[in-house]
C-alpha cells in the first residue's frame, strides 16, 4: 500500500513539473536600430546580424498587389522589446507587425500610417515603442507605434 502511494505521488509530481511552463522574465528582444535591406530575387529578406530571414513576397503582394519586382524595394525592419517585428517600406500605407511563429512570421496587426504611401520611412527604437520617421524630412512629426497601433502622432 505504502509503495503504491509513493509510486502514485511520484507520478503526480512528475506530471505537475512537466505541465508547469518555465518563464524567463524580463527578456528584451529589441534591436538598437532598424535594418534596411533589399530582398533577393526570391523575395527573401536576409538579416545576417540577427540570423533572421523571411519571405517578403506575401507582404509585398498584400500591400502593393505586386510581388514580381521585389529587388527594388528596400524593406525597413525593426524588432521591439517584446519581440514583435515591425516592417514597412517606401510607398507602403501600413506598418505590419509580426510575431514569431513556427518557421514563419505571423501577422499580429496592420497599422495604417499614411494615406498616400510613405515617402522615406525609417524606424527608431524608443523604449517600449517604435518610432516611425521620415528619413528625408527631419522636421516632419514622428509617429510612435506599438503592436496596438499609433500611440502618438498622426497619419501622414
Amino acid at each position, binding site marked *: 500500500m505504502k509503495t503504491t502511494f509513493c509510486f502514485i505521488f511520484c507520478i503526480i509530481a512528475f506530471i505537475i513539473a512537466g505541465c508547469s511552463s518555465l518563464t524567463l522574465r524580463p527578456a528584451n528582444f529589441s534591436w*538598437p*536600430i*532598424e*535594418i*534596411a535591406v533589399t530582398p533577393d530575387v526570391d523575395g527573401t529578406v536576409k538579416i545576417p*546580424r540577427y540570423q533572421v530571414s523571411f519571405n517578403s513576397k506575401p507582404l509585398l503582394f498584400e500591400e502593393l498587389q505586386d510581388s514580381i519586382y521585389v529587388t527594388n524595394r528596400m524593406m525597413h525592419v525593426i524588432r521591439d522589446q517584446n519581440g514583435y517585428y515591425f516592417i514597412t517600406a517606401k510607398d507602403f500605407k501600413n506598418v505590419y507587425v509580426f510575431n514569431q511563429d513556427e518557421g514563419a512570421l505571423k501577422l499580429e496587426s496592420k497599422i495604417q500610417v499614411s494615406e498616400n504611401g510613405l515617402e522615406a520611412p*525609417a*524606424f*527608431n*527604437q524608443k523604449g517600449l515603442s517604435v518610432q516611425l*520617421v*521620415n*528619413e528625408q524630412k*527631419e*522636421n*516632419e*512629426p*514622428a509617429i*510612435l507605434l506599438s503592436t496596438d497601433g499609433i500611440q*502618438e*502622432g498622426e497619419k501622414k
Partner: protein
Amino acid sequence: MKTTLYIFILFLGSFCFLNARQTSERLIVNKFEGSVKELSLFADSAKTVQDCAEISSMIDEIEMKYAEKKDLLDRALYPDDYSKAIEKLRGKLLIRRNDLGVIETQYARITELEAQVLGLSNKIDSLDQENEKLANAIKRMSGSKALVDSLKMVISKLRKNLIKRDEVIFSLVDSLFLQYDKNVANMTDIEKQSIYGKLERKNVFTGLKKSIEDNLNFLRSTNLTPSDYVEIARQNSRFTSQWKGVGPKLADIYLSGKKKTDEVMLIDSLLGVWSKEVDRSNWESLNTILTKNGIVLKPFNNGDEFTANFTGYVDTLIKNTMEEPEDVRAKQFNAFNDNVWKNNIEPTWLPVLLESGKLTEDQVDKIENAVDNWESAVSPISPIVYISIAIVIIAIVIGLAMRFRKKPEEEG
C-alpha cells in the same frame, strides 16, 4: 496645483522628446561607419607625416562629432562599440606612422598645424552659413525704409564677416603649406600629391572662388555707404596681394592638372572682375560725394582722369572766370573743405586710393596742392597784413616828411 504642474511638465517633456529626435538613427550609425571605413582606408594609404597628421585630426573630428551619439553607437555597432572603433583607428594610424618612420617632434608640430587647419576650415563653414543668412536679410530689408538702421547694421556685419572669411581662407592655405616647411619647387612628388589631396579635401579653390563671388555680390548689393566702398577697396587690394603670394604656389602644385590650372586662371580672372568693379564703384562713389556737395567734375574713371579733372576744376575756381564775389567763393571753399575734404577725401579716400595703387604719390601731392592753392585764393587777407602795410606806409611817410623838413633847414 503641483500635480497639474507635473502633468504639464511631463506632457511638455514627452512632446519635446517626440519632436526633438526625428532623424533616422540607422542613418547616423551608417554615416559613422562610413567615416570610420574611409579613415581606415586613408590611414592605410598615408604616405607622409602630413597625411598622418591630417588623418589624426580627422579622427579627432569624428570623435567629437559623434560623442553625443555614443549611447546609440555603443548599442548599434557590432562587434565593436564607439570607443573601440575610434581606438582601432588610432591604432591603425600609429602602425602606419611607425612604418613611415615619422619623427615624433615633427609629427607634433604638424599635428598642431593640422588642428589649426581643421579649426579654420570649420570657421569657414560657419562664416558661410552666417553670411548667407546676412545676405538674405539684406535682400529682405532692402525694400523697407523703416529698417534702414537695421539694414546698416547687417551690411556692416556682413562686410566684417567677408573680411574675416577672406583672412581665414588664406590662413588655411598658409597653414597647409607651412606643414611642409619648404618651397613647392623643393617638394617631392609624394609631398606634392599629399598637399594636392589636402587642398582638394578642404575645397580651397571653391573657397577662394566663393570669397571673390561673395565680395562681388556684396559690392553689387544696394545701399552701400562711401565708407563701405572704401573698406571694399581696401579688402580688394589685401586679397589681391595675398593671392599674388598664394596663386603661384597653387599653380606649381597643380602644374600637371589641366583642370586645376584652369581654376587658377579662373580665380585670376574673377579677381580681375572684382578689382574692376571695385575700381568703377570707387570712382562712382567718389564722384557722388563731390556732386552732392556741389563739386561737379568732368567724368573720371581712373587716377589720371580724377587728378586732371579735379585740379582743372580747382584752377578754374582760382581764376574766378565766373567773377563771383569774394564771400561766395569763400563759402564754396569752406563747404568743400568742411564737408568733403577734411571729412572724407583727405583722411579716407586718398590713403585708400594711394594704398591700392589707384593714385600715385605725385597725384596725391597735386590734389593736395590744388586744394591749398584754392584756399589761398579765396581766403581774405589777414588784418595783420593790413596793419603791417599801414605801419610800413606810415614809416615811409614819416621818413619822407623828416627828410623834407631837414632840407629847408640846411638851405636856411
